[in-house]
């Protein structure tokens, strides 16, 4: 049956990409919320925020963009839970399960669709950031590295999203998991330097995954060689990915047996 894995996954990915093309609002809303946040932070709070060069000094869009991109991903992956839950509700999931197709294709199709949809949303957000004055000294290799980190982060969060998509009882429950994920960047170095935070908050901020990922992307965008943060960031992403994938597969097997 695995002989058909690639073919079946391609066919099913084509199906869910078509869903996105027919309701592009899922990409627009994924991009819109982070853009609104970026506008507010840059033009309302930005003048008062000290990123290390004195309040209001330096290019705050440059400082902010990595965190904004992660927020975009965290909200974007909830559509994977949404679409997966919809398939289960509508009965088409059962139809696929009773057909002679590669079993894991159904999940991989949703995951690949999430990568494509989030990539498009991120391109839109970066485009708006450029209009707002985002400038980068990144070379081609740095861009590749940034893309790789963002894809890995999307992949990890998407596999987390698969779990509520398969287990939720209601549509609201399926998408609610993403709220804490969206909140994580606020408790990190995404908006302000962590050394301005009080003790326990600072400790949390410095030891959670978003900070190392934000720092890595910020370094890469500024054209500096990435610090040790990149290895911590990669370790977090791979660790979350492997754990979420394993859990999702357990849940999936239970669901289809």
């Amino acid at each position, binding site marked *: *049956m695995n002989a*058909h894995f690639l*073919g*079946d996954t391609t*066919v*099913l990915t084509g*199906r869910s990409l*078509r*869903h996105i093309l*027919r*309701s592009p609002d899922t990409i627009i809303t994924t991009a819109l919320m982070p853009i609104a946040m970026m506008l507010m932070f840059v033009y309302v709070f930005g003048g008062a925020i000290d990123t290390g060069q004195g309040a209001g000094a330096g290019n705050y869009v440059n400082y902010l963009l990595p965190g904004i991109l992660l927020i975009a991903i965290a909200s974007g992956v909830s559509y994977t839970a949404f679409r997966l839950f919809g398939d289960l509700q*509508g*009965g*088409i999931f*059962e*139809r*696929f*399960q*009773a*057909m*002679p*197709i590669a079993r894991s294709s159904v999940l991989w199709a949703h995951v690949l669709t999430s990568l494509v949809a989030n990539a498009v949303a991120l391109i839109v957000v970066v485009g708006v950031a450029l209009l707002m004055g985002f400038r980068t000294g990144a070379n081609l290799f740095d861009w590749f590295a940034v893309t790789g980190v963002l894809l890995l982060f999307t992949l990890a969060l998407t596999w987390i999203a698969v779990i509520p998509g398969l287990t939720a009882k209601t549509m609201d429950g399926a998408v609610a998991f993403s709220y804490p994920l969206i909140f994580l960047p606020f408790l990190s170095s995404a908006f302000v330097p962590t050394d301005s935070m009080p003790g326990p908050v600072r400790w949390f901020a410095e030891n959670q995954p978003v900070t190392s990922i934000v720092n890595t992307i910020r370094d890469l965008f500024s054209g500096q060689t990435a610090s040790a943060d990149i290895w911590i960031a990669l370790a977090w992403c791979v660790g979350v990915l492997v754990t979420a994938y394993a859990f999702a597969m357990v849940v999936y097997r239970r669901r*289809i*047996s």
Partner: protein
Amino acid sequence: MTPPAAATAVISMRGVLKSYGKLEVLRGVDLEVQRGSVFALLGSNGAGKTTVVKILSTLLKADAGTATVNGFDVSRQAGQVRQSISLTGQFAAVDDVLTGRENLILVAKLRHVDAPDAITDDLLARFQLTEAADRRASAYSGGMRRRLDIAMSLIGKPPVVFLDEPTTGLDPEARIEVWQTVKQLAQDGTTVLLTTQYLDEAEHLADRIAILHQGTIIAGGTLAELKQILPPAKVEYVEKQPTLEEIFLSLVGSNERNES
């Protein structure tokens, strides 16, 4: 060491048990369906009809007992069973965002058939969906959705088709359309196992009927055989009360009565 009946039985279940937690849904189900026949599983809501269909279509595992479809064991040879069957679930499982044509092509590609486009055109015509082919399934009526659903099930010509309550929620016209489809399937030699809670549906369509009640088959056979189980007809005198229709007609006058 297969029992002799298995030679002609395309679907067979022996001593199948299934519980959800403490709730016993199936308490030893035995059934046999001959190749090319229409078999109706009759029962009220909650009798376990859907559970039987789900076990036969590899979506659920039985706690005990054996079940084979087209000669393959549903738990050990699930892949081959899936090659042999098609399932039309209780609720029309079509993709609402896609058009009717796209739904059919999707299934055709997943079934790895040659020439998906030609098969799709053929099925659209056969199910009177050609005109609506390029509209989204979400815009279809209940009857059209069901026709599309069944059409999707016929791609790849599976020898066994399961229809779980195919007419529940349909208006009388759409119901008759589904009945015609089932009769046509039987003529083409497909084995059909359908579940229903409507007695007349089983009476109309099925070669053999089994009555599932509280997790076991309490009676089975042809319609004629089942009729013999009933106590012989007896004559009773009952006072005839006027029906609402008669009251209505006598109130609105005799003109309407003459017209009708």
